[in-house]
């Protein structure tokens, strides 16, 4: 591997990301899967770094899941997106940041389509007006939330309590970065680092002290694939692809996986349990799995937030071995204690995959 070669490509794919004043839209599913992530994003941007991030409770889904599941037509998804833009315009923002990778891809795809087919844009404006009497301006900048964390990575590193370093050996942690397919595979120029060697997560990992692993199936999909998971008959295909990724990264013995997509961490995390049950195989050390994180969770961890406040107890793969490696302080007894100090109850432990 020639690192300079990658740097050269990264240099070709730098995108302009304004520093402040963003209109933030959430993901449909992340709040259920990784509830601490979006909260942590706003916490870091607003409170730690003091930036202006606006949010509107009336924003909806972008329609991406339905679009990629082939259940709604393009005009519908475009009108939904147009309404989101209208909300942004009404709030007086022109920088639009999405929490979800599929949303991000969806916005980019729609904006590019309108550029190629302006008549479609006109039509959507009419449809939006007919539907809810709203008008919109197209955002000046569209970013994914990971772009911003990437942009703030050094600021975060300056304030970091922990680094991605194994405190027993002093070695950097071996980190697998997994980029959501819709981030830059459709429009390479819209992602930091392009499509083949995206830099957005690599940059964070490097800034926070970890070591990026480049393994053969790095580019491969997490296995979600919308229709592949949602249609049960296809679900074997979904898990087969996840399995392929783990088989490929296994020889590198990664300490953790960082992702920037709502679906990826979910499937990389939960399918490890299913694979363990089916094949009797686990990929982490001592029968554990490889812990999977969102980039916000990792940012929160290095900044010293309590792992249980980050919602890490909702992960399938136990995070404790990794927390121990980094040296993050945590109270095992508080793991299943809710914010209101109510007991969340301990989940049943799986048979093969070792969990805490």
């Amino acid at each position: 591997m020639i690192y300079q070669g990658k740097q050269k490509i990264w240099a070709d794919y730098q995108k302009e990301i304004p520093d402040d004043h963003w209109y933030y839209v959430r993901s449909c599913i992340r709040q259920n899967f990784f509830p601490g992530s979006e909260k942590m994003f706003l916490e870091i941007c607003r409170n730690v770094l003091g930036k202006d991030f606006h949010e509107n409770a009336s924003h909806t889904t972008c329609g991406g899941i339905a679009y990629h599941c082939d259940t709604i037509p393009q005009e519908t998804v475009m009108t939904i997106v147009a309404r989101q833009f209208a909300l942004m315009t009404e709030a007086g923002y022109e920088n639009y940041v999405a929490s979800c990778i599929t949303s991000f891809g969806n916005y980019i795809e729609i904006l590019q389509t309108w550029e190629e087919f302006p008549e479609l844009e006109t039509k959507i404006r009419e449809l939006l007006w007919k539907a809810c009497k709203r008008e919109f301006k197209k955002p000046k900048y569209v970013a994914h939330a990971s772009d911003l964390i990437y942009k703030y990575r050094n600021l975060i590193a300056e304030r970091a309590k922990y680094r991605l370093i194994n405190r027993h050996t002093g070695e950097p942690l071996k980190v697998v970065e997994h980029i959501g397919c819709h981030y830059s595979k459709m429009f390479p120029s819209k992602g930091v680092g392009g499509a083949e060697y995206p830099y957005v997560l690599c940059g964070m990992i490097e800034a926070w002290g970890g070591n990026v692993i480049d393994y053969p199936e790095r580019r491969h999909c997490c296995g979600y694939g919308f229709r592949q998971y949602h249609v049960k008959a296809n679900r074997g295909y979904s898990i087969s692809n996840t399995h392929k990724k783990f088989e490929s990264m296994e020889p590198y013995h990664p300490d953790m996986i960082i992702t920037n997509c709502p679906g990826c961490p979910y499937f990389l995390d939960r399918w490890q349990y299913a694979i363990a049950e089916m094949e009797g195989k686990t990929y982490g050390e001592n029968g554990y799995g490889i812990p999977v994180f969102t980039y916000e969770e990792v940012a929160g961890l290095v900044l010293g937030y309590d792992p249980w406040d980050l919602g890490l107890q909702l992960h399938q793969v136990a995070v404790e071995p990794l927390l121990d490696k980094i040296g993050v302080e945590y109270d095992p007894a508080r793991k299943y204690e809710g914010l209101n100090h109510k007991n969340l109850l301990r989940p049943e432990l799986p048979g093969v995959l070792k969990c805490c």
Partner: protein
Amino acid sequence: MKENILIIGGGIAGLEAAGQLLKLGYNPIIVEKSDHLGGHVADWNRLFPDMSPAEDLVSRLIAASSEANIFLNTEISFVNRLKDSWNIMLSNGISIITRILLFATGFTLFDASKKEEYGYGVYNQVMTNSDLEHWFNTGQDERIPEEGPAAMGFVHCVGSRDEKARNPQCSKVCCITAVKQAIEMKQKFPEAMIYCFYMDLRMFGKKYEDFYISAQKDYGIRFIRGRVSEVSENIEGKLVVKAEDTLSGKPVKVTLDLLVLMSGIVCNQQTCKTAGLLSLPIDSDGFLKSRDNIADITEAPREGIFYAGTCTGPKTVPETLAEARSAALEIHNYILNGM
């Protein structure tokens, strides 16, 4: 006084045209931007289909054109149109007045790093056809181990027939070059397993098909019809190459020690700039536009300007030489017929 003819480019087309024009009694002036004559062919080792050394051809051409005025490391700075001629200002400060210009500006090899998925410049064992020829010539390249690669691959059509790489045209020579290089590698390393990943095999020229059969039968080179989709590195630092074997409709994966990218022929950006100085049109494929693509391939739409070789599109060596001779004759007739 002998008629001045300015030849832009000192590759094989420029040299051959100069040699012919000398014989016809003119005064050819070659302007070459690099520090050597012979262009891409001078960097090549052996030429298909007879495996003749490229050096022999280039030195023969140089010898035949030695009486021409040759300016190396020189470019055209600007051009003034006079009444019936041009005043050409060169980067070395010399100005030339000529009534006739011959473009023999050749081509540029596609920058393989633009095909990011192949990892040229990123992975240690990815090289181009030109790098391999350089190794044939010098024997120096860290990417090729002394004992030879156990398995290696050739990727055809890198930057050719690729709309996204903005080169929809076929580069014509890569198929046969890949076969030639594969045979040469097999001759050097008989134990190596060699794969050629191709989209189509365009074996149009004299003896090309024989070459191909020999590669299959005598050298056991394995041809896989399918474009390489991505290249990655495994934990041992070997290349993992993925492609679809379109003939069986199945994806294939193979671990290789060396991957050679057959960079295609693309138009020379410098040529376009010079053409701009003379308001010459560029064809839709990015190469110079001839007066007619069938009957007048060597003539520009403007009087007194001629083309030879790959400045008008991908060509093989014999085609280029034939075109250079043809252009020289066109120039001769043009002068005889009183312009």
